[in-house]
């Protein structure tokens, strides 16, 4: 070969490598150029308390309250004596400064932005945004002038949230639309200022990008939309405007609650302790209790940022999982309302189950994945293995919560159906063709794990080792055969149900292969999560990986919490002295509970009381779904089992 051909060959090799890199990481590599030199988030990530912010918030609230009181002062001749006496002294700038002397020392400059969120049931909140250049009184007056008559009442304003942003550092330019996939803007960290010669400057504070769902690539467009919606700009003006990014420190107060530092629209979480876990599980359980109706249906989906629950979707498998988590929570809280709700929901599930006419003594369940217009369940024909598997988990958990509360015979009928679904090699069919006309080839990755965990729970409440045998056979198939062929391991699925089953099976029948597989699942999950506190923003510790245009999913932190806490329990038993998975489980739990609505992070919700305790899908997407809440509750319950010796044992055995 001569030098020329070798050179051409090398060029071909380089081209090949380039193409390959582009195929695998093209998205990320392509956007790095547009990202440029975006700075790190302001430190500390969650700002310290700030006396100026406290004073401004208190003063603005005082001014709004006093004007509202004036508006609601009974007119002469009004004989309604039921209204409480209210202060009706007209608020003035002088009076406000006199009542809030801390305002006097504030150098407002052009660095402060005020946002006021007034709850509006059934719709997203349009915050009133203004600057504080002319002081707190003028800013409050600006806000007051934009409120509707209904909002100008003490009762409505008492639930309002007041947020102040203090701009830090210099403004920075960025490519239009945030560059490729919006990568030049950090969601919830970067605000946008729009300037137009014919308009008052519009400030789009950073948190607006996470308070309502928006793709990263649409943040710039969202800022323009808000300039129209909130600032009264014309569409053409928003397009002509000069724009720049800026960063802030921010503090918020809901009603008369404490003033709390927020970043990316969220507040910091305290250190994970058993007390905190108990508190958060209880909050979630209360959410589930509220969302369970008198027929036992659990609200499947609630869009918290829009206060919208007008969805017709349902999922009976996830319903069963929810009952399971509610029963777990009852073992902690002994809240009777919760137990009643769980029993009602179990009753709903059992009403959908069917006795198998072909196989007497067995019971299966058909799916419900839609609701009728009158919100009654639309019962389908599909019979999922996962549905009956989680049904078993729910039945067993209720039995553990209160022995005798559910029928053991019904539980066994369901377990016998699961056994029927098992093939001679240990694998399970995912769907039961009960009509004889609905043969399905689909093999769910997760149904088998759900079924095996269900069988183990049946063993825990019956003591019958037969169920242990069936579960073990199923687990061995998944560990040894499902994803192994021709000398290759194709895949280790991040199967949160299976790893829990393996941990509990290990207590009864330890096996090195199953143990290794359980840890492999744990590693597989942790590998794609941010587990290094030195390399990620504080609020992203424990988060999974997301695409360039979005923030990491928070709902999966729930199921991965179940998985990692199971791995941590196994680690504590099999690898004493090690804490790798314990640390992973704690970091994951941090991200999990950061995304639970629990108080200060509800400031932008139209109906915070309803969302309270629910877990949202993402930091920038306020959808609360019952299975996300379930996974989070069960994951935290499993972690509590690890951290607190007095907490209920997740795999407790009870006598029938």
């Amino acid at each position, binding site marked *: 070969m001569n030098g020329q*051909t070798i050179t051409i060959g090398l060029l071909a090799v380089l081209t090949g490598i380039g193409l390959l890199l582009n195929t695998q990481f093209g998205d*990320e590599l392509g956007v790095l150029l547009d990202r440029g030199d975006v700075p790190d988030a302001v430190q500390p990530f969650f700002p310290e308390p700030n006396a100026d912010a406290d004073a401004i918030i208190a003063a603005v609230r005082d001014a709004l309250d006093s004007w509202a009181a004036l508006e609601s002062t009974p007119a002469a001749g009004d004989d309604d004596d039921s209204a409480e006496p209210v202060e009706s002294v007209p608020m003035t700038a002088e009076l406000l400064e006199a009542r809030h002397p801390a305002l006097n020392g504030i150098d407002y400059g052009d660095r402060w932005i005020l946002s006021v969120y007034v709850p509006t049931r059934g719709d997203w909140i349009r915050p009133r945004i203004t600057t504080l250049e002319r002081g707190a009184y003028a800013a409050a007056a600006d806000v007051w002038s934009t409120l509707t008559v209904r909002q100008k009442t003490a009762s409505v304003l008492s639930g309002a949230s007041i947020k102040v942003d203090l701009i830090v550092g210099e403004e920075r330019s960025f490519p239009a639309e945030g560059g490729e996939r919006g990568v030049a803007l950090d969601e919830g960290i970067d605000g946008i200022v729009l300037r137009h010669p014919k308009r008052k400057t519009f400030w789009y504070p950073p948190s607006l990008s996470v308070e309502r769902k928006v793709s990263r690539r649409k943040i710039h467009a969202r800022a323009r939309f808000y300039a129209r919606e909130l600032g009264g700009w014309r569409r053409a003006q928003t397009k002509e405007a000069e724009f720049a990014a800026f960063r802030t420190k921010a503090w918020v107060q809901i009603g008369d609650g404490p003033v709390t530092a927020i970043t990316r629209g969220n507040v910091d979480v305290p250190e994970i302790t058993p007390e905190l876990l108990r508190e958060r599980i209880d909050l979630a359980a209360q959410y589930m209790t509220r969302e369970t109706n008198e027929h036992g249906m659990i609200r499947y989906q609630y869009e918290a940022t829009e206060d919208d629950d007008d969805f017709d979707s349902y999922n009976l498998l996830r319903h069963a999982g929810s009952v399971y988590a509610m029963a777990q929570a009852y073992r902690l809280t002994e809240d009777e309302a919760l137990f009643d709700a769980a029993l009602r929901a179990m009753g709903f599930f059992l009403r959908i189950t069917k006795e198998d006419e072909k196989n007497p003594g067995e019971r299966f369940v058909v799916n419900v994945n839609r609701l009728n217009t009158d919100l009654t369940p639309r019962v389908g024909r599909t019979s999922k293995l996962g549905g009956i598997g989680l049904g078993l988990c729910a039945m067993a958990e209720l039995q553990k919560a209160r022995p005798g509360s559910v029928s053991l015979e019904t539980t066994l009928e369901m377990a016998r159906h699961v056994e029927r679904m098992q093939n001679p090699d240990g694998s399970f069919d995912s769907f039961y063709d009960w009509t004889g006309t609905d043969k399905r*080839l689909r093999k769910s990755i997760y149904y088998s794990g759900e079924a095996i965990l269900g069988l183990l729970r049946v063993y825990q409440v019956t003591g019958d080792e037969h169920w242990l045998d069936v579960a073990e056979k199923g687990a061995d198939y998944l560990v040894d055969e499902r994803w192994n062929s021709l000398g290759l391991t194709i895949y280790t699925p991040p199967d949160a149900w299976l790893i829990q089953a393996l941990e509990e099976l290990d207590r009864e029948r330890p096996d090195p292969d199953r143990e290794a597989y359980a840890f492999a699942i744990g*590693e597989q999950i942790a590998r794609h999560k941010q587990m290094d506190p030195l390399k990620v923003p504080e609020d992203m510790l424990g988060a999974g990986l997301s695409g360039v245009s979005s923030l990491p999913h928070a709902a999966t932190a729930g199921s991965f919490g179940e998985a990692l806490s199971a791995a941590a329990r196994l680690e504590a038993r099999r690898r004493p002295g090690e804490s790798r998975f314990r640390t992973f489980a704690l970091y994951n739990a941090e991200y999990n509970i950061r995304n639970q609505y629990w108080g200060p992070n509800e400031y932008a919700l139209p109906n915070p009381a309803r969302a309270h305790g629910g877990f949202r899908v993402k930091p920038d997407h306020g959808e609360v779904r019952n299975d996300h809440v379930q996974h989070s509750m069960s994951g935290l319950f499993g972690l509590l089992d690890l951290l607190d010796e007095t907490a209920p044992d997740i795999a407790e055995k009870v006598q029938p």
Partner: protein
Amino acid sequence: MSKNKQAAKAPPAPPPPEGFVTRLGKDIAEVTPLLALIPGILGYVMVNAAMNPELIELDKMAQAAERWHGDDFANLAWLGLVFSGVLFAVGRSRERTATLSLLGVSTLALFGCTVATFSLAWVHGRENYWDAYHFAALLWTVFGTSVLSFASFKVAGDRGSVFAQVLVGVSAVTVLLCLFVWTYTWSPLVQDFEGWIARTLWQMTHG
């Protein structure tokens, strides 16, 4: 001397009968080098099937699973690999390099099509329908075709084919990649490396 004469007069021993495989090999060797395109054509058929909308649209998957079972893809992949092997043996036995050079391209095409088929299958949720065997069949075809492609170009290049000398580098890269993927299937170290890349890229693109 007389013994030698006698030997010279004896009729020559008949050649040993040729076996079926030898005769088949000769037949194949007689035909045009274009036969080497077969693996590539099989690859095209496979990836074209994998791009069938019924296989990648969620609501049609269940029905499509009956028509395009994982076995069909695995069989196509195996067939392509076997053809590649046979044609490599044929090409090696020829003095001219055309067959091997063409085979190198053809197996490289089969390699690419199989990678694409595997990726399409994975991205579009075929793991809910296929067994590990189906994925393993595709992976071994990927590994095998990369080696055969490299070997074809290497032999042809050594025999003076400039075309093969240029492309041998590309196929060498595919072999290295296959080595990496194979190692990934069993080595936690390599899996951690992949995870590190993914995490680092996320950190570089999010703040």
